[in-house]
């Protein structure tokens, strides 16, 4: 193969890995095109705006190679400790990037809902995916999305037919299991709701043990006219993991989309949310909560493109940083000249619990229309001594008081999580991370 990328990511696309021919001409040509893009882009440096605060050096040092086909066989009971207690969901499970039917629970799917592994559907019904793969992300992709496309071989597909309304959440679990050497998994997810469809998607990234690995996921999501999706992403990767997520969203006329992002795990995590309005009167609500402690980086990039009039977007991200934790919030809202009556509000608030913690926050509004309602705000603060004293004067120890105030700060985002079973589990995870946080 002569299209081997000429940069540090070459090993991600080893010839004997997933890059082998798929037997689908259109897919092979898209993957070859992506390989060329990876090669041509080279390695982003901190001189580039999108990577200004985040260095790729640590990622490149790890020498990740693609996950081999065969992974350790797992039993459903291995998965049990990682489930949300009491959560009833249609469950689709990937292990190291590959769909595992034996761990999934996809029986009795309601009419109009199709959930399955991407590789399987590429085999049985490739036409269902031909227009959807790269359909939202586009053909020209930034480095990590291009890497994902170049190595594309499995992931999750969720298709909801016109008008189908699914009550029970669809839960996508991406489980990583430590291998003999550092591996990268590049799952590709495709979610499409046709006109009037309604669903709830819970996307969880979990691991067994504290292994070193990398997840580079891409999710392409499209909502048809008046479709409604609640999307919850809970990232609790291993403490040594690298996590990269690219989300590409296309929101149809009158559709409503809410995404609640929770970033707790991984040593290095980068999430890009790209929102494009494809019809008027669509609503997009992006909520986020991140924690970062010692040796942890949480990097969120939002790019919300109001190209059409009468759409609204909310971007509300909150972070708690402790130890030597680092976070980046780079939020961009673009309003095109013709996008009148755009309503956009962006907020990023951060709580720093230690002197060594650091956050770079950069909200940007680019407004080219004159009849719009747009705002943005950002804060970086500490726990108020008055609040701490109030709690202590009631008999509550200083560490517990700090934790209660942090959970209070996070509560606004945690309360967006549904059902309660999920909210309670995530609140518990946030609490226990804060319990282990070093107190200055």
């Amino acid at each position: 193969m002569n299209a081997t990328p000429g940069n540090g990511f070459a090993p991600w696309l080893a010839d004997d890995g997933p890059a082998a021919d798929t037997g689908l001409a259109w897919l092979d040509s898209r993957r070859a095109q992506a390989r060329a893009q990876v090669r041509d882009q080279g390695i982003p440096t901190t001189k580039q705006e999108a990577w200004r605060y985040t260095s790729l050096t640590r990622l490149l040092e790890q020498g990740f190679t693609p996950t081999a086909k065969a992974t350790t066989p797992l039993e459903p009971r291995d998965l049990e400790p990682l489930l949300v207690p009491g959560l009833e969901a249609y469950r689709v499970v990937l292990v190291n990037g590959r769909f595992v039917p034996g761990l999934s629970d996809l029986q009795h799917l309601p009419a109009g809902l199709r959930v399955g592994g991407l590789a399987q559907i590429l085999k049985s019904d490739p036409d269902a995916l031909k227009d959807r793969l790269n359909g939202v992300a586009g053909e020209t992709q930034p480095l990590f999305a291009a890497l994902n496309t170049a190595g594309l071989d499995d992931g999750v597909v969720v298709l909801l037919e016109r008008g189908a309304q699914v009550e029970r959440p669809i839960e996508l679990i991406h489980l990583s299991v430590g291998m003999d050497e550092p591996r990268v998994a590049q799952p590709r997810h495709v979610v499409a709701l046709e006109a009037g469809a309604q669903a709830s998607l819970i996307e969880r990234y979990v691991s067994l043990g504290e292994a070193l690995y990398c997840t580079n996921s891409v999710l392409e999501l499209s909502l048809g006219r008046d479709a409604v999706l609640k999307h919850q992403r809970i990232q609790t990767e291993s403490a040594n993991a690298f996590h990269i997520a690219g989300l590409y969203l296309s929101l149809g006329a009158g559709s409503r989309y809410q995404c609640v992002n929770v970033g707790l795990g991984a040593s290095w995590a980068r999430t890009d949310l790209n929102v494009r309005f494809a019809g008027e009167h669509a609503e997009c609500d992006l909520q986020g909560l991140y924690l970062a402690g010692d040796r942890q980086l949480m990097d969120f990039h939002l790019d919300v493109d109001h190209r059409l009039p009468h759409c609204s977007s909310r971007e509300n991200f909150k972070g708690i940083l402790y130890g030597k934790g680092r976070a980046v919030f780079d939020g961009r809202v673009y309003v095109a000249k013709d996008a009148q009556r755009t309503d956009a509000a962006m907020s990023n608030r951060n709580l720093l619990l230690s002197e060594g913690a650091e956050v770079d926050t950069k909200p940007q509004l680019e407004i080219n229309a004159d009849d719009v309602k747009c705002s943005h705000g950002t804060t970086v603060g500490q726990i108020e001594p008055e609040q701490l004293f109030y709690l202590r004067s009631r008999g509550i120890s200083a560490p517990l008081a700090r934790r209660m105030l942090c959970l209070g700060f996070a509560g606004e985002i945690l309360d967006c999580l549904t059902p309660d079973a999920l909210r309670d589990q995530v609140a518990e995870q946030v609490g226990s991370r804060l319990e282990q946080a070093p107190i200055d």
Partner: protein
Amino acid sequence: MLSIKGLKANVGDKEILKGLDLEIGRGEVHAIMGPNGSGKSTLAHVLSGREGYTVTGGSVTFEGQDLLDLEPEARAHLGLFLAFQYPVELPGVNNTYFLKAALNAIRKARGEPELDAVSFLRLMKEKLKVLHLDDSLLKRPVNFGFSGGEKKRNEIFQMAILEPKLAILDETDSGLDIDALRIVADGVNALRSPERSVILVTHYQRLLDYIQPDYVHVLAKGQIIRSGGKELALELEDKGYGWLGAEEAA
């Protein structure tokens, strides 16, 4: 139960308390009155352990222990409670969760078993009834978005749940209209018992119409310059603080 001897305290370089003596027995209600800037709130804060004050002399013994040596939470464990002049808003911290954490921290420190959710809820309902409070209070974040009167009532509610041995009410009457004042006073009266002592810190005699003190002390320029029975408050009402040579500092 509380013995203050020659207490001196600074804020920054400024001496506010200049040798204060006070003895409070079990079950007694003491009013501490005085003009603005006399050191009333400083006394309340020093007793509760707030940061920003330096004790430069004297001693405070509470239930046989050196109070000044203890962290704020340890003082609460011993049975001290401060009703704040300006109760602090805690957005996102649920009132029920907060009170349960507080009560169980105190019980644990005393070697008592923690209350489970059901027993705690029963206790809350019971106290709400005694104080004629609405149970919507339980679901709201602590003091967040509360009116001035609601905040003060929430302080009294916390006091009812935590059952302190000594409650210090710091200007609890300030900013309350007459109806709110009556509700708060009724609450305090409902909690009076031979086991519980109260210090009422106030600028005005008004509060003492509703909560009858056993003793009244006048604090001026960092010292108690006069002590007496409840008739002293009436005399102050008549003659003002100037009568005692205690001018307004501000």
